[in-house]
């Protein structure tokens, strides 16, 4: 029986090639989209879960409270790990480490700037990276030792054995390679290329040893003896600050390592989601696309039921049971799902590299992972079942007497179900169009929003190596200006796009003593606002005259507003206990998130703290030749370091990564969803045109023009798509306003996205349907009327 059913199934599929193509093609695109999205979800979901003890590993978060809000971050005192080890029961390991930061590492002529982490021995116990060679056990207990990842070792040493070779670090320290570990997994939160001992960090930065509980400068990780001890440990940890500083307001929360990446958004000291929200959307999207492909199958199978009715009638007449028939039709849909899956495989392998480069990630199919195969088989079976179950029910319900006599006009019930299914597909498509449009509008709005300075043609050069010396700094400035490649030069203590460097210890006359306000602080060079294209609202900016001046400050507007200064220029306030004077006010400019109002900022002028040179490129000059000139000059002055010149606007773009990703994925997979829906529509149109062939011919004989017929055939579909849009709009409005509500700066939802959705879905529907109906409308009427 199975063999016979298979034979019939194959013959039916073969006989109706266009339907098979539409069905299998739709299912294949649906399955491939679904699987790529699931791969991405799995990639994100797998973050930090490669370590054997990840379930009992926690990241220490520091909740710092002020009367307005609670700020949470994973920056803790260097003393914390030691204290936890000593005093808190139930903790197996506690480690402190820095966050990854690029440093220069060199071997003979090879030098690279690569991200490094300084860590203690416990770090490697908690995060058990795979050790490829050497001895990692003792590596981090020394001072001048290093652990390399495989890729960096190969870059530095080629085919040579790296163990016990000697490297130079930042051109100062000599390091001995003690071990090589596997590359850090791409979906790991801590991305580094080499590990250095904590002792070296203390040696290079002597202040670390003396820093107390008020200095939150490192990452602390804990691993519990077992998960059951979490509540006990977290209760003991909570007040660890207060036990060490009597008037501290900080509290500790433990964030599971497994949730570090996905639940990165904190409100009131509690993790309230973050990337996980986006991930949930993608997860949902994956299944919706598949569902849409399944709907195509349901639609076409029931639409074509009249053709199969005879077969059902005959089979029932010769004794087939309903169950046996359902079985047969389900087998057909499983077969189709299987064909779809094979095609999906090819599509995925073709699409993945493109998808990866588009999203700047590296997903790949892991064929050796059993979970992949389970998901694959599961998806195929589910698809076959969902797509096939309704048609099987419907087709097997025919009564033989009726169908063998010929079909009357009993198809109205299934017609309305088919219509409902088409409406469902287009509701989804229209929703996606609206949401995608809103995402892009918001992205564009934020990108176009003035950021307070002119980021175009602005480059940043880190002051490292030779450039740390004042003479070389000055030399670089002179040479750059003389070369004509740049028109202005200033300095800054951080990159223009970096956060960090902030303080609560600012007070002013009339400040509420309970008020904790966080101020950003930066050291800025002479002609700072002029160079970056910002605007001074009042007073003057720093000039060469303010040499190492630690008493004169420039405030941004937000700081002036926060302090409530009516006449800011000349006003005094206290910072870290010392009185300082305001000499100027600069218009707010964005250094942190472009989605939020800039925080209060204090600028001062201490040359020792300059970390970056900021230069304005000559607008008259050719960009690539100017860049070459700049690179040559930098290299000549600082030959031991690779040139790290960066464009400020490139760095700025990275702030939009999340939204850009969402926009791209919504656009891409929204496009696929719409494509699959129109495939279904094409199938239905194909069927409708065939069914109404006779009617169309009569109409043509009576004088209908091609246009009349096209209108007639398209009208019904247009109605359905219009209904779908009407249903989709409130839905899309709720979803997109919900998404927007997370942004402080956001667009008002306008009519435009809805207009786009109506237009786009109608155009797609009309084009799809016309593709088929045009053929029928042009056909010679007598062909259909001749053989009745």
């Amino acid at each position, binding site marked *: 029986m199975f063999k016979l059913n298979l034979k019939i199934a194959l013959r039916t599929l073969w006989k109706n090639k266009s339907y098979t193509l539409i069905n299998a093609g739709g299912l294949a695109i649906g399955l491939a989209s679904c699987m790529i999205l699931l791969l991405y979800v799995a990639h994100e979901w797998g973050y930090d879960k490669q370590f054997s003890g990840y379930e009992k590993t926690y990241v220490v978060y520091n909740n710092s409270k002020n009367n307005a809000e609670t700020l949470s971050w994973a920056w803790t005192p260097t003393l914390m790990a030691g204290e936890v080890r000593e005093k808190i029961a139930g903790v197996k390991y506690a480690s402190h480490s820095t966050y990854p930061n690029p440093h220069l590492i060199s071997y003979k002529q090879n030098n690279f700037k690569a991200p490094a982490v300084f860590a203690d021995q416990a770090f490697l116990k908690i995060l058990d990276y795979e050790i490829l060679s050497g001895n990692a056990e003792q590596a981090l207990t020394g001072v001048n030792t290093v652990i390399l990842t495989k890729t960096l070792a190969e870059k530095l040493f080629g085919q040579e054995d790296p163990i016990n070779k000697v490297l130079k670090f930042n051109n100062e320290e000599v390091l001995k390679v003690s071990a090589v570990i596997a590359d850090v997994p791409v979906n790991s939160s801590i991305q580094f290329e080499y590990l250095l001992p904590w002792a070296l960090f203390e040696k290079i930065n002597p202040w670390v040893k003396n820093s107390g509980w008020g200095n939150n400068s490192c990452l602390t990780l804990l691993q519990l003896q077992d998960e059951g001890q979490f509540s006990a440990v977290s209760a003991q940890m909570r007040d660890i600050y207060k036990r060490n500083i009597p008037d501290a307001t900080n509290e500790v929360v433990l964030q599971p390592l497994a949730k570090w990446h996905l639940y990165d958004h904190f409100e009131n000291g509690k993790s309230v989601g973050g990337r996980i929200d986006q991930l949930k959307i993608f997860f949902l999207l994956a299944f919706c696309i598949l569902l849409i492909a399944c709907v195509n199958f349901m639609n076409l199978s029931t639409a074509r039921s009249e053709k199969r009715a005879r077969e059902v009638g005959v089979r029932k007449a010769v004794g087939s049971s309903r169950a046996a028939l359902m079985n047969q039709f389900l087998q057909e849909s499983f077969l189709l799902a299987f064909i779809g899956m094979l095609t999906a495989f090819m599509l995925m392998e073709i699409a993945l590299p493109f998808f990866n480069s588009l999203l700047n990630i590296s997903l790949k199919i892991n064929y050796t992972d059993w979970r992949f195969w389970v998901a694959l088989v599961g998806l195929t079976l589910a698809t076959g079942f969902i797509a096939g179950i309704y048609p099987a029910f419907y087709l097997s319900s025919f009564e033989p007497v009726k169908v063998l006599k010929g079909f009357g006009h009993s198809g109205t019930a299934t017609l309305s179900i088919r219509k409902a299914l088409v409406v469902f597909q287009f509701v989804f498509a229209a929703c996606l169009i609206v949401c995608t449009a809103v995402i892009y509008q918001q992205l564009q709005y934020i990108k176009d929003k003035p950021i307070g300075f002119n980021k175009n043609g602005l480059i940043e050069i880190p002051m490292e190596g030779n450039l740390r010396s004042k003479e070389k700094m000055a030399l670089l400035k002179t040479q750059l200006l003389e070369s004509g490649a740049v028109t202005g030069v200033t300095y800054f203590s951080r990159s223009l796009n970096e956060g960090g460097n902030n303080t609560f210890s600012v007070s002013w006359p009339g400040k509420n003593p309970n008020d904790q306000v966080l101020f950003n602080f930066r050291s800025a060079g002479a002609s700072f606002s002029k160079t970056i294209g910002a605007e001074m609202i009042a007073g003057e900016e720093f000039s060469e005259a303010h040499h190492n001046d630690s008493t004169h400050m420039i405030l941004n507007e937000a700081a002036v507003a926060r302090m409530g200064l009516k006449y800011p220029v000349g006003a005094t306030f206290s910072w870290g206990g010392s009185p300082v004077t305001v000499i100027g006010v600069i218009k707010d400019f964005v250094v942190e998130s472009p989605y939020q109002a800039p925080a209060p900022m204090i600028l001062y002028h201490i040359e020792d703290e300059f970390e970056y040179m900021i230069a304005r490129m000559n607008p008259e000059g050719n960009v690539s030749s100017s860049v070459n000139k700049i690179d040559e000059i930098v290299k000549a002055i600082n030959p031991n370091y690779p040139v790290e010149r960066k464009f400020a606007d490139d760095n700025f773009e990275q702030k939009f990564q999340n939204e850009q990703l969402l926009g791209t994925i919504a656009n891409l997979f929204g496009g696929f969803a719409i494509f699959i829906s129109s495939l279904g529509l094409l199938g239905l149109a194909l069927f409708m045109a065939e069914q109404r062939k006779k009617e169309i011919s009569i*109409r*043509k*004989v*009576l*004088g209908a*023009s091609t246009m009349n017929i096209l209108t007639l055939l398209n009208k019904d579909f247009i109605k359905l798509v219009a209904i779908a849009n009407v249903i989709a709009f409130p839905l899309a409005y709720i979803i997109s306003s919900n998404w927007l509500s997370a942004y402080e700066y956001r667009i008002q939802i306008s009519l435009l996205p809805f207009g786009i959705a109506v237009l786009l879905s109608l155009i797609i529907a009309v084009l799809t349907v016309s593709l088929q109906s045009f053929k029928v409308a042009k056909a010679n009427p007598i062909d259909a009327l001749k053989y009745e």
Partner: protein
Amino acid sequence: MIRIENLEKVYKTEEIETTALNGINLQVKEGEFVSIMGPSGCGKSTLLNVMGLLDKPESGSYKFMDTELLKLNDRERSNFRKANMGFVFQNFNLIDELTVFENIELPLIYNKVPAATRKAMVNEIIQRMNIVNRSGHFPQQLSGGQQQRVAVARALVTKPKLVLADEPTGNLDSSHGNEVMELLCELNEQGTTIVMVTHSSHDAGFSNRIINLKDGHVISEKINKGITEELI
């Protein structure tokens, strides 16, 4: 009114070529009622379709009131057809989804007749055809004879110069068949030119002239004046 010369039509399938019309010459005068007869496959339906501009011949000439119709393009053919011709088919070819009234109205819509005029014209023809009480019904609720009356009404509602009927009684029993034939005769008397294809010599007896076809040739023509006069 109609002058057909050397008309040829060949049907091609994958393997065989069938000559349906092989040099037909034919004239129809205004006000005539012509029957075309002949065995199955002699080409009579093809001839009717060509005359109705539903099919294109390979060669020859077809003049309708001195206009050469075979040179027209699709749009012109369609316009000419809806302005001058009405069709009656063996299987009625009514649209199942439309009521009797709507079926009859359809050609008027395509002829862009204004709604009010349309209504009057349809009502007039419905009365003439004696199907007033059926106007809101759907085709499948009617008997075969009634359906064919509707089809005739639809063919006539535009007041065509030429009515083409393809075996109009083929699907009807004899009494319904006679009803339809009498209707056609009545129309003819009122001045409509009719060309009818039929198998039945009984039906052909209603016409003025009978043309016999065989293998795509006209083999004989017979003036049938007597019978029609008898009927009058």
